[in-house]
């Protein structure tokens, strides 16, 4: 089962990298859904020999909440806010990809000196979860639209969740469920925030005056 865990970890990092390289917000949300579904499979592989009800609950909860519900809410948000579908990165996409590659290498380098308690199912879980967190952080920092920042936050959460899964036995279920609820609440709030922010941007004079300044100076 180790090879399947490895595969999922690699895919999760790959999806984070793919989000970083996507131009369309819809595409980003779809990739995020795929990443969450992959993440939902990990508990099955981790405890393949003795599958408990808790594993199934966590896995299904992840898949339904992060793989279906959250993308649905985000799609709802971008449909109803009538925003442009292109992301607006601060740094170019090409540079983001190179930065992402550097971050992945950094995550592996940091993991060299990290020792986790207990026996790990696979030696790739820790570096890959760190890489996902860093890539999510990068998405959050370098993409200016509110929805894309929410997505970056969610990718970061996925990385933390992967990390928590590797310490599964040491952690009570409540914490796991807490993380899921946390995200659920966060998306809800963010969806509303996005709504407001975007409406105000479109009505407000801020954008107009900025472009005028650009012309005169």
């Amino acid at each position, binding site marked *: 089962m180790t090879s399947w865990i*490895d595969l999922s970890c*690699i895919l999760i990092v790959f999806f984070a990298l793919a989000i970083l390289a996507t131009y369309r917000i819809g595409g980003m949300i779809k990739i995020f859904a795929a990443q969450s579904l992959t993440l939902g499979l990990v508990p099955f592989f981790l405890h393949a020999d003795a599958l408990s009800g808790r594993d199934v609950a966590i896995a299904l909860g992840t898949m339904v909440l992060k793989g279906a519900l959250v993308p649905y809410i985000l799609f709802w948000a971008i449909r109803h806010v009538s925003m442009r579908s292109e992301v607006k990165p601060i740094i170019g996409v090409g540079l983001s990809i190179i930065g*992402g590659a550097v971050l992945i290498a950094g995550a592996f380098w940091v993991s060299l000196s990290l020792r986790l308690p207990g026996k790990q199912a696979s030696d790739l879980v820790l570096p890959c979860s760190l890489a996902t967190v860093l890539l999510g952080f990068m998405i959050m920092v370098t993409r200016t639209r509110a929805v894309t920042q929410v997505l970056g936050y969610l990718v970061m959460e996925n990385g933390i969740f992967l990390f928590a899964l590797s310490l599964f036995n040491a952690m009570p279920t409540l914490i796991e469920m807490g993380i899921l609820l946390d995200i659920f609440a966060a998306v809800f709030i963010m969806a509303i925030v996005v709504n407001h922010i975007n409406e105000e941007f479109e009505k407000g004079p801020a954008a107009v005056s900025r472009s005028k300044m650009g012309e005169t100076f």
Partner: protein
Amino acid sequence: MKNVMLTIFFHWVIVLALAPLFVGVIAKVKAMFAGKKGAPVVQPYFELARLFRKQCVYSRTTTWIFRASPIVGFGAVLLFALLLPLGVCKAPMRFSGDILLAAYILALARFFMITAALDTGNSFEGMGSSREAFFSCLSELALFMNFITLAIMTRSISFSRMIGADVPLSWPHSNPVLLLVVASLFIVLLAENCRIPVDDPDTHLELTMIHEVMILDHSGVDLAYLLYAGAVKLFLFAGIIVPLLIPFRTGDPVKDMAVFLAGMLGMAVFIGAVESSMARLRLNRVRNLLLIAAALAFFGFVVALWRGGA
């Protein structure tokens, strides 16, 4: 000595005989995806035969470079073929470091193609040359990164060891690395052979294409050589990826060869499916696709180092 000659000859016969068929299968799959019947899979052979019967027409402004380029291109891929193992057939030429020779043979062919395109003085061909030079720089980065990863895994820098017998058998141990290498190499294959997300092999609209625009002025036998070289190059790139994907060996040469050829057929169908289901990327986004290939290769390299150190 006679034996060596025979191996080389046999290798060339396989490559030259099957390469147009590979292109034909891709075209057939694309036609079927589009709901058409499509040309027979042997159509590329007919087209090559037709071109080989024709005469070449040369512009008065061109020099010997223009005439040399098709021959150099064709010779280069034939030389490249000798360095690659194909299924059970071992590479006729193998030595430590032949991956570098292979990469630079391809670069030589590309250099001649670019200079020949510039030689015509056609501004469209100049545009195509500039794009080809830029994109091949980036795809070479990914290609070499993958070679380094494979070299770390096999502790060898010869094609015969790197994609030869023992690598695919390590799938259970290092499948994430091989997966990344295969994914990255596949993007390189699409870019180097001008397949759809990067370049459309069917279009003849000068403003958007890369490879087709560079061979606009070639005609007759010269064009046949260029098309044949393109087909062989595509076949050989697939021949690098397919052995990495087959995780078992039966031990029987005939069965192994059959599995390899079935894998090549599957690869042709897959390329056709990818080409049918994707649109051409905008030119300024091709760069990002190639950078993703390089990032995947780098990721594979990091994981290989991580595993190698553990």
